[in-house]
């Protein structure tokens, strides 16, 4: 993408006003790593939001608030009570990218292989969008289609709110790749709420290998009310085929990707159950 101008607004309100005025000729820049790969011959004006104090992680009561311009490496290094975001951030791209690429950049324009939307869907996160005032959008609504639709009028993502996992909650994520730093073939995230040995509720999401990140409702339905044991997890994973349209590629058939998803779902559920039962942090 060609840049014709580079602006550093000094406040959120100014950033929004600038982006509103620019319309399609404006482009928010945080880490900026994805901008180098975006098509478009028409030059755009970059609006750099890294000077607006949007890089932070804070625990506020029962949720963590992550600033939209927080680099992935900060999320990877952060530790809070029952914090679960670090594992997936460690698996995204390379050290140099993680130092620059931000959580906001990963979820404002979602690429099919993006990992964070999957995790945020499973965790029931809430996105804070600034449009003169703050509005919170639940993950299910935010990721119902390309989130870029929410930012057309210069509105900006300012933070992501992630619930602090309760004692009987467990989270697990799995990213299947060809090698350590490759794009994901299948990413699965699972949140389990256990009561005794029984699954009270489950949120399971997938990304890559399907056209757009989504929850796997038939898999969730196969878990609710059942015992948190491997046999149940296997049966639930087998519902992956009915839950989404798996797509092949890079020499892999759609059926292979679906099988990979089933194995990954099983792994993610085992990890989530282990977490819920009191994994050492």
């Amino acid at each position, binding site marked *: 993408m*060609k*840049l*014709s*101008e*580079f602006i*550093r607004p000094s406040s959120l309100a100014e950033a929004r006003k600038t982006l509103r005025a620019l319309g399609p000729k404006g482009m928010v*820049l945080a880490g*900026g*790593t994805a*901008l*180098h*790969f975006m098509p478009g011959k028409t*030059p755009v004006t*970059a609006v*750099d939001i*890294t000077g607006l104090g949007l890089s932070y992680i804070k625990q506020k009561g029962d949720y963590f608030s992550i600033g939209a311009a927080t680099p992935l*490496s900060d999320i990877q290094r952060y530790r809070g009570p029952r914090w679960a975001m670090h594992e997936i951030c*460690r698996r995204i*791209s*390379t*050290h*140099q*990218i993680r*130092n*620059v690429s931000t959580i906001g950049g990963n979820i404002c324009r979602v690429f099919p292989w993006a990992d964070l939307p999957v995790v945020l869907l499973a965790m029931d996160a809430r996105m804070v969008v600034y449009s003169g005032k703050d509005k919170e959008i639940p993950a299910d609504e935010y990721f119902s289609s390309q989130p870029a639709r929410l930012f057309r009028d210069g509105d900006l993502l300012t933070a992501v709110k992630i619930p602090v996992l309760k004692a009987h909650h467990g989270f697990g994520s799995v990213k299947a790749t060809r*090698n*350590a*730093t490759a794009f994901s073939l299948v990413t699965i995230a699972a949140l389990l709420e256990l009561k005794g040995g029984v699954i009270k509720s489950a949120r399971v999401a997938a990304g890559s290998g399907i056209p757009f990140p989504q929850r796997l409702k038939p898999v969730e339905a196969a878990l609710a009310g059942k015992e948190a044991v491997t046999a149940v997890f296997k049966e639930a994973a087998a519902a992956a085929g009915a839950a989404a349209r798996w797509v092949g590629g890079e020499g892999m058939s759609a059926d292979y990707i679906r099988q990979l998803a089933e194995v990954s779902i099983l792994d993610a559920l085992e990890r989530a159950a282990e977490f819920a039962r009191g994994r050492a942090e």
Partner: protein
Amino acid sequence: MTKGTHTVSFTLNGEKQTFDTRPDEKLLTLLRREGYRGTKYGCGQGTCGACTVLLDGRATYACLLYAMQAEGRSVRTIESVGTFDNPGEFQKELVAAGAVQCGYCIPGMVMSATALMETEKDFEDEIVKEYMDGNLCRCTGYEKIWVALRKVLDRQAAEGNKPAAKKTSSKGAKNEQA
């Protein structure tokens, strides 16, 4: 390049400097144009790591950073770590281990290792791999690079009262970056 339409000021290897640039010029292009040619252009798409520089102490791909993004920040290139006549500790060990074949990846490897040594206290294999996972070498298969790096890290751990790595393997990096 014709005279830039914009200027950018940042601390380069400890010295505050101002450069002419354009909004879409990459930091890598600016650095090489200004004579800092130790920073290499490899893939140009954030995969190989040959262009790694430190931005406020963190390893970053200079090919995926617009020069304007460096405004007010601190940039360090390989020239700040060692030169041909006065190489840094890791550079000496790389030569001693026979880890340099074509040599193109080495400046980036050294910058990632510099970030590691200046940031971390613990040099366990997993942490070392994390810092080095964005640098590709297509000649040596990493084995000798790893041997050279482990030597430096183990020495630093011993000297600096830093906890020594639990496992000192010469094979640790192999599978991660194949």
